[in-house]
């Protein structure tokens, strides 16, 4: 696939990195030669220096036969104009753009082919805030992702001593929660994937992924962990776009304090937030932290745009006694360093965003793609088409599928019904299927499996 990425910022470069491993031809355009050079040194991609919305720059980047354009420069306007040009001048089939300003986003009628021809709007801030919001609403979970029209959620959690099921076989879950339909799709023990079955014994520190409907999640989480009290007090360190949106989403139900270093920004925050307490100062300033009772907080979210500051202040908060500390970390190397030990949850905005982009790059009818475990694993929602003859999945039961190793079918949506499949569940055409891949490298095989064979038609 020929892909043009406009903007070599965090999202742009992470996407480039992720996609360059999948046999795509990628060109990255940016105004800053320095950023591009660094990317080109690491990855097998082409780079073009220039203003991303100028037609001649786009031509140089090869837009004439590109399959997809991804506009993620830091200017909404540049992104929209680039998509407009790609559409009107070059008929680029798929156009994705990042648009941040809520003023644009509240007018969906704007983003149609005759106006601003953007096929998919990407708003990393929104994805990240939703992600964090899920985590806060569900204490104990590490990650929560929506599938099948939000009817089913994929939850990651870390089993802990004291959980009723820890040290027992997984089959006990069924006895414990007889009415709950769920499916454990993967267990990671010391970073190695185990394909779970009834005999698997849960150990402490196992990372467990399961699918269940929203209302059951609390009960399932409680099976693997000692009781998590609901959160009440939230500290947000960093009043940037993410911090602000997070505070807006949370302030009506939680007691939120937000810390920001810039006095002017503080005023701005105070003016637009209703109940949040806006604090001016450094999040790692001990006197501020003590005076405002950070030690009694339930969740500490370090969401400034500086990785090091986020890591350090989240570690500090953890040491002070915050129940759960999470930090936004853009550099993936840091994530491995700190997650689970020094702080509880490391979030990578680019990783969260990339799923939205991958959905449109994959071959096959993908509804959602979520990148998990720093890009190592993936959960996808894919639609099965065809019939028994043309498809290798339709009309077959789960046991008959030649799924690659470490791959699990987690849930199926058939019309209004959600099925947690058994070995003998038969897949029908137009089923939405959630597949969990413990190893992302197997994605090509899954794509192939779901392809409708052209020759049979």
């Amino acid at each position, binding site marked *: 696939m020929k892909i043009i990425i406009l903007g070599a910022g965090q999202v742009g470069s992470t996407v480039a990195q992720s996609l360059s491993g999948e046999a795509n031809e990628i060109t990255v355009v940016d105004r800053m030669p320095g950023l591009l050079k660094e990317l080109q040194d690491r990855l097998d991609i082409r780079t073009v220096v220039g203003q991303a919305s100028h037609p001649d720059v786009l031509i140089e980047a090869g837009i004439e036969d590109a399959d997809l354009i991804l506009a993620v420069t830091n200017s909404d306007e540049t992104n929209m104009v680039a998509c407009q040009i790609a559409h009107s001048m070059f008929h680029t089939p798929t156009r994705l753009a990042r648009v941040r300003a809520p003023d644009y986003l509240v007018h969906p009628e704007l983003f149609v082919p005759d106006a601003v021809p953007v096929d998919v709007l990407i708003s990393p801030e929104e994805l990240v805030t939703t992600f964090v919001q899920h985590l806060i609403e569900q204490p104990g979970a590490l990650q929560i992702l929506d599938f099948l029209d939000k009817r089913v959620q994929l939850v990651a959690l870390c089993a802990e001593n004291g959980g009723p099921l820890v040290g027992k076989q997984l089959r006990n879950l069924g006895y414990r929660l007889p009415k709950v339909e769920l499916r454990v799709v993967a267990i990671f023990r010391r970073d190695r994937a185990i394909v779970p079955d009834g005999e698997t014994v849960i150990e402490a520190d196992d990372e467990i992924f399961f699918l269940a409907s929203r209302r059951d999640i609390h009960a399932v989480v409680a099976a693997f962990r000692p009781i998590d009290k609901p959160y009440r007090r939230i500290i947000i360190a960093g009043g940037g776009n993410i911090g602000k949106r997070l505070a807006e989403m949370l302030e009506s139900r939680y007691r939120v304090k937000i810390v920001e270093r810039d006095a002017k920004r503080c005023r701005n925050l*105070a003016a637009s937030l209703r109940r949040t*307490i806006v604090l*001016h100062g450094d999040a790692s300033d001990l006197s501020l932290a003590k005076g405002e009772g950070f030690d009694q907080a339930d969740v500490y979210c370090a969401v400034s745009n500086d990785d090091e500051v986020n890591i350090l202040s989240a570690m500090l908060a953890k040491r002070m006694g915050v129940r759960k500390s999470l930090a936004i970390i853009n550099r993936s190397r840091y994530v491995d360093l700190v997650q689970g030990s020094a702080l509880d949850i490391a979030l990578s905005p680019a990783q969260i965003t990339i799923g939205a982009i991958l959905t449109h790059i994959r071959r096959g009818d993908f509804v959602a793609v979520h990148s998990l475990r720093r890009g190592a694993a993936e959960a996808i929602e894919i639609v099965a088409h065809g019939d028994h003859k043309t498809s290798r999945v339709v009309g077959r039961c789960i046991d008959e599928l030649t799924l690659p190793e470490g791959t699990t079918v987690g849930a199926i949506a058939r019309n209004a019904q959600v099925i947690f499949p058994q070995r003998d569940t038969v897949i029908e055409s137009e089923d939405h299927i959630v597949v969990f891949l413990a190893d992302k490298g197997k994605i090509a095989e899954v794509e192939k499996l779901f392809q409708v064979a052209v020759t049979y038609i």
Partner: protein
Amino acid sequence: MWARQGRVRLTFPARPCGTVKPVHWRAITRLFGILLLLYSLSFVPSIGVALLYDDQQWDVFAISLLITACSGALLWLPNFRQKDELSLRDGFVVVTLFWGLLGVVGALPFILGLHLNVTDAVFESVSGFTTTGATVIYGIDQLPYSILYHRQQIQWLGGMGIIVLAIAILPLLGVGGMQLYRAEASGVTKHEKMTPRIAQTARVLWLIYLGLTIACALGFRLAGMSSFDAIGHAFATVATGGFSTHDASIGHFDSPAIELVAIVFMLAGGANFAIHFMAWKRHSLSPYAADPEIRGYAMIFAFGTLFVAASLYWAGAYSGSLESLRHGAFQVASILTSTGFGTATFADWPLHIPLTLVILSFTGGCAGSTAGGIKVLRILLLGKLGFRQLFHLAHPRAISVVKLGNRAVSENVLFSVWGFYVLYIITSLLLTVAMMAAGLDLESAFGAVVATINLLGPGLGEVATNFATVDPVVKWLGVFGMLVGRLEVFTLLILFVPAFWRN
């Protein structure tokens, strides 16, 4: 939002405040010449009333008209060619002189027709133009119809003047509650510009004002007043003035229906006319509900009424809860909007009620209305400022902004509100001291200050209903108090700052 909106008769070119220019006396004189010529026409309806009721006073108004027109011409003709643009600084002089001069001119019929002395006549006239409603005349019921009409009309014109002053002109001078409605300051409910030019804005506001007056007059007529009383009281109600054509004020009619009409239109007069405009333009009541000041105003009215009614009920001042509620609601509306109509003399009510009403009178109506007092908007902001201080004690490192609705209010505006409050209170205290020095006892002096600076009308003690018996010095202090209250303190007091006059 009102800044630099072109020129009407008053033109305030955008000039940096640093450049101090001498006051353009000749241009101001010319302006007032035109003004007096125009104002002389306002005696024509009174002549008409005099002829209609044949009360032998038409010559009084004819002479007043002549005197006014001649002096207008005398001021205007010599300065005919003066076309200097007025500066911002001239604005303060013009606005203050405007009320002062009209006070004098409006006094002419009282001197000529009722043979009042100058002090009493000017007091009565200024009380009218500032929509205060304090009076020095006894036996109002026996006054000739034309004089009665003149009194009511003065209040109506004063109300008309203050609306344009408050909404269109004072904000240009950087004074008054409505500056809070300017875009950068807060845009409380995202006020759209009413119209781009002052002249047009004034026309629209007057139309609304006229509409309210007509509705009010019809309401009174249907509720049982005579046409003359209905029109006269409508003038004083919408202007939140408080002059009545009877000594017993609204109590004369003793009719719940009339009181209800009066309550509705007093409250309408005390609401921001910019909001009336928006409601009228959008054909919906939602602007009222959305405006934080109107909401505060409604809350104050509701709680004030409940409190006073309950107090009256427990004190047994009236038989039955309904009667208490009726008197409570009327008195609270009348005093909150600084109208000063009475159905009872509140000074005679149980002790804590008069003080409650005095506090309500300091609160006043909304900015951009005909009401007096500190204004609900400022009270809201001051209250929030106080709470913010408490919040800061609990969270020393927190940054918070005072918000009205969802909009942040700038620190500058808060300072100006705070400054206004301090000057208002200090002026009130000093006036009280001065009135005591002039011979009033504490209660009467304080009552007189409340009655005048808040543009209320009735006071406490000796001036509970009438200022006739007090010393002339007290009356002049009252005139000063009324002007201070009407001109939002700053406009008048700045004329006493030497730096203002220094070139």
